[in-house]
């Protein structure tokens, strides 16, 4: 049986202005899997991620890490965040330091590692993201795609068991997207559990083992990607369209073209 890594039970959270962001949300994240949290804008996906790493505190419900309900005390949170990393959507919000290496070392140093250990972690994370050559560059001079990868390296350097990524491919062009999917694939292969949010059904289909379909602060359905994405009723309810490749009955582009006799 696959072990549960993270679990959310009946999370409720309201915006300050009123209105429910999360409305009794349940979610299970299985160890070593790639889960896509799929839903339209404003469905509460980012808010969910902030709950999964303990940044926001639900009004009701609870989050379990490895089957244990974690509290929001200082010590509990530190342990929580050590295991569950978060990469936010806009890289400009998470690159604080002047250079790439300095920025990536922020997390490891906060873990209490020595400078030497932190430096090793930085090299390792930059290598994993394929950006070792950027180490000495100034963060504000990077391109958008580079910033995005530095932001992920910042989380990876803390060696989290679970990595939460908010819209990781948003704003990237085709080449940047392919590159980043490769990197994420490698992280998954190395054993990191990945949870990503997206409103892009094609990305969810191409990338995830499992999909949690999300609408109005609730999980409509969670299950194997192909099954959930093919559920027309649920997908329509979430205001999403079935991926074309899935409808054509294939998993990738090359297969579609081969099957239909072109190229």
């Amino acid at each position: 049986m696959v072990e549960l890594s993270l679990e959310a039970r009946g999370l409720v959270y309201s915006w300050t202005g009123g209105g429910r962001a999360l409305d009794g949300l349940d979610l299970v994240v299985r160890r070593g899997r790639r889960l896509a949290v799929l839903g339209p804008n404003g469905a509460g996906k980012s808010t969910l991620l902030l709950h999964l790493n303990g940044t926001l505190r639900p009004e009701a419900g609870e989050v379990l890490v490895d089957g244990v309900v974690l509290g929001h005390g200082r010590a509990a949170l530190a342990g929580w965040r050590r295991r569950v990393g978060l990469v936010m959507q806009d890289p400009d919000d998470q690159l604080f330091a002047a250079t790439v290496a300095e920025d990536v070392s922020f997390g490891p140093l906060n873990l209490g590692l020595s400078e030497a250990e932190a430096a090793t972690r930085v090299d390792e994370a930059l290598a994993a993201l394929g950006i070792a050559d950027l180490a000495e560059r100034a963060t504000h001079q990077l391109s958008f795609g580079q910033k995005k990868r530095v932001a992920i390296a910042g989380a990876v350097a803390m060696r989290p068991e679970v990595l939460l990524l908010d819209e990781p491919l948003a704003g990237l062009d085709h080449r940047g997207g392919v590159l980043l999917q490769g990197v994420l694939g490698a992280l998954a292969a190395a054993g990191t559990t990945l949870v990503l949010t997206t409103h892009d059904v094609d990305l969810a289909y191409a990338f995830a083992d499992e999909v949690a379909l999300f609408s109005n602060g609730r999980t409509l359905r969670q299950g194997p990607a192909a099954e959930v994405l093919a559920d027309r009723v649920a997908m329509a309810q979430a205001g999403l369209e079935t991926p074309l490749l899935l409808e054509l009955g294939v998993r990738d582009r090359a297969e579609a073209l081969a099957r239909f006799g072109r190229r």
Partner: protein
Amino acid sequence: MLALGLLVLVLAVPPWPGAVAVLVIAWTAALAGARVTWRDWLRLVAAPLGFALTGAFALAIEIGPDGLALARDGGAAAAAVVIRAAAALSCLLLLAVTTPAPDLVRGARRLGLSPEIAEMALLIWRFLFMLLESATAIRHAQDARLGWHGFRRSIRSLGLLVALLLPRALDRAQRLECGLAARGFDGSLPMLSPRQPVSLRFIAATLGLQAAVLGVSLWWS
């Protein structure tokens, strides 16, 4: 309107019973009239009272020949100030929860505030929400990487946050200038102000209520 009038009254009349009456009216108006939930309202009220209590402590003690001692009036003055402050605060919050700040600025403009200042205030209003959003996002990102665990790290994180925010604020200004240039920005910011419906009945009721509070307090004392 109601809130501003009450605010003036609080300062003008003695704390008992004027301020207490105002306190009751403001709370009723907020909780019943404006439908603010108890939870939100209490949270709003609680924060600034820290200042009131520290300040009142200063009033309740006295530096005499033998050092510190309890004030001779036994803290009555302190209590009066706290009651008045609590009432005034409630009026302020009532105003804050019922009237968006831009409406106040527009009102002030009709009353003769110079357009440059009004415009600046409205622009600041817009910027502060954009920057608050950025600051919150940065804070969350730092939190995720354990940036706020312990005093030294918190100081460092806050410093980095501020240092990131300032260039972003100026950058935002520059980009907004560019975006507005496309719409004919030449330095001035003309716009149509929404018209506010004024309810005569509401004004009459407000004035009546305020007169009543004033009357009762004067009669009592």
